[in-house]
């Protein structure tokens, strides 16, 4: 658990000053929630879950598609188990959860990419793995008013994986560049650049008119190489 070890004694939210002024849903209420949850307060844990889970699911959907909920469940189980060893504030907590989730998602993809031939994958697992990306139907579900969350995520998912991940960690998980960099195992500058490129691409696409549905369905497969 590198995050826990590295976070010990170190301010997890380096570069947090960048976030000054940014509104965070429930940010004020959640200030002490991590500490209270570590003391065993279930309501504090509930507050953390409510804040983090939707963001996590959206991020994971981009990584593993329909298996996002599975991976999220496993992530939370590990979070409940290892919470006592975590050190950091609420922003650090989201970064930590994102790190666990990403590791699990990578394991998931790695497993599906090189499964041992002697152990055939059960049919149901194969069905869940037609693509590492969400199908357009998955992400477009539950449309909101003008632009649904699903459509927005589908659009972001059309970006190259490193850019999509950077954008999601920054905008959806609400991580600052330094924390997102730690999640991705990259330098903050690289993450800033990836996110910037991602936004530039999105802006260009949006300028040239609403994204055609084809752009969403023709998403290229996410590969492990993309995520490294």
């Amino acid at each position, binding site marked *: *658990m590198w995050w826990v070890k590295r976070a010990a004694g170190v301010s997890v939210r380096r570069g947090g000053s*960048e976030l000054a*002024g*940014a*509104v965070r*849903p429930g940010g004020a209420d959640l200030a002490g929630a991590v500490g209270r*949850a570590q003391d065993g307060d279930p309501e504090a*844990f*509930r507050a953390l*879950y409510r804040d983090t*889970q*939707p*963001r996590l699911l*959206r991020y994971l959907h981009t990584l593993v598609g329909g298996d996002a*909920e*599975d991976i*999220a*469940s*496993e992530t*939370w*189980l590990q979070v*409940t*188990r290892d*919470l*006592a*060893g975590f050190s950091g504030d609420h922003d650090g907590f989201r970064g930590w959860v994102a790190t666990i989730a990403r*590791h699990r998602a990578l*394991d*998931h993809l*790695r*497993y599906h990419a090189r499964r041992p031939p002697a152990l055939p*994958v*059960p049919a*149901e*697992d194969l*069905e869940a793995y037609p693509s590492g990306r969400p199908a357009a139907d998955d992400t477009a579900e*539950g449309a*909101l*008013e*003008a*632009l649904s*969350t699903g459509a*927005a*995520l589908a*659009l*972001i998912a059309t970006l190259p994986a490193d850019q999509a991940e950077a*954008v999601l960690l*920054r*905008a*959806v998980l*609400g991580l600052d*560049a330094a924390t997102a960099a730690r999640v991705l195992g990259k330098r903050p500058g690289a993450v*800033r650049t990836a*996110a*910037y490129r991602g*936004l*530039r691409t999105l*802006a260009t696409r*949006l*300028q040239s008119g609403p994204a055609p549905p084809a752009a969403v369905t023709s998403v290229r497969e996410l590969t492990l190489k993309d995520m490294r």
Partner: protein
Amino acid sequence: MNTRQTTPISRKAAEQLLDGAAGLALQGPEDLRGQDPLACVLAAAAAPGRDSELAGEDMAVAAFEASHLVPVATSRRGQMLKSPISRILTGKILAASLAVFATGGVALAASTGTFSGSGSVQGDASVSATAPAVTDTADPFADTPTAAAPVVSASAAASASASASASDTASAAANLPQTATGLCQALVSAVMSAANGAGVQASGSASASAGATGTPVLSVSVEEQALSSGLVLQVLNGSEFASLTATAQSSGAVPDYCALLLNLPQLPQPGELAKLPASVLSAVPTSALSQVLPTLPSSTLSSVLTELPTSNLSAVLTALPSSGLSSVLTNLSSSATNQVMTNTSASATNQVMTNASVSATNQVMTEVSPATAGTVLSELPSSTLGQVLSELSPSALAQVLTELPKSTVSQLLSELPTSLVSQLLNQLPRSILSGILSGLPASLTGQLNLNLTL
């Protein structure tokens, strides 16, 4: 922050957009109207969570509470790759074992070895008679041996599994005696996991998650909550729980069956218990069944107790504490009371009548048929008989004594000390007393010290 421009957005504008996405997401559609499309996309992606995204909230909190009961400090480092493999192993072995079960051979099913709790130890002996015998497979989340070992230390076999499965090979799956109790534990964990993930996945992932949540000892409240969840029926659709459903004969009866095996103080669906076949019910540990009897609705209680064979009925009734027994007896329908009192063994009848409260004794003795009342009272040793008759109200005593055959009355009364008989009979109205006395032999009536002269 206008990025609607022909030149690509600046780095600074991008940073501002990324940092501001969450704030924009909180604003209403009107506020977003003037924003540029890119800001709207980011705001939509960061929109507040929907209910569907939080479907697993309660179960996640339950898992959190459960894990807090047993502090677990362990690292998954280096184990990440193994879990999917063991997940496959579990699924494969499960499939094979269920196939054996289906073909009528020795039934095998899976459980994760790390499960524990008082219920499993208790359930082993009695359940194996009716429930399929179960063999363990590799623990799908065997990377937590430090957590599992202390938890299962109550059972040598289970700890063997925990340490063996740490090596995470298929051969590590020692053939453990496993039970329906283990499957019930797995069911609880799978439900929690399913609720956590807001969706029920196919069997492979369900069993894998089961191992993960099974690591800590689950609290009673967590188990109750999981078994009460509507997700149980969905999880039961998975093939790994087919033997449970088959044993309980309907998926609707599984939550109650599992609650009994897990020794929970209350059933999730008390009304459904009657659906369990009597053979299964009689294989449930007596103490677990006794525990829930006082919580059952009258009709279910009556149905359950009348279906139990004599030996089980006697064991269950005698295992009840006095208050629980009285509540059960007063809750039974009249016809069920009659049948239950007829079916109970003599020694159990004695214990039941000794332990029951005064009001329960009165209710039982007035509700049963004269024949049953005669049987019950004749089965009692004289000390208990004296106690029971003394506890009866004058009207109940009058009813019992007038309805019983005269020969039985005289036999019963002759067992008791004459002083007690005198005391009992003196409570009765004169008309009834004279009727009763007329059936008694002169040898007995002569010794009585009654308030009236014949």
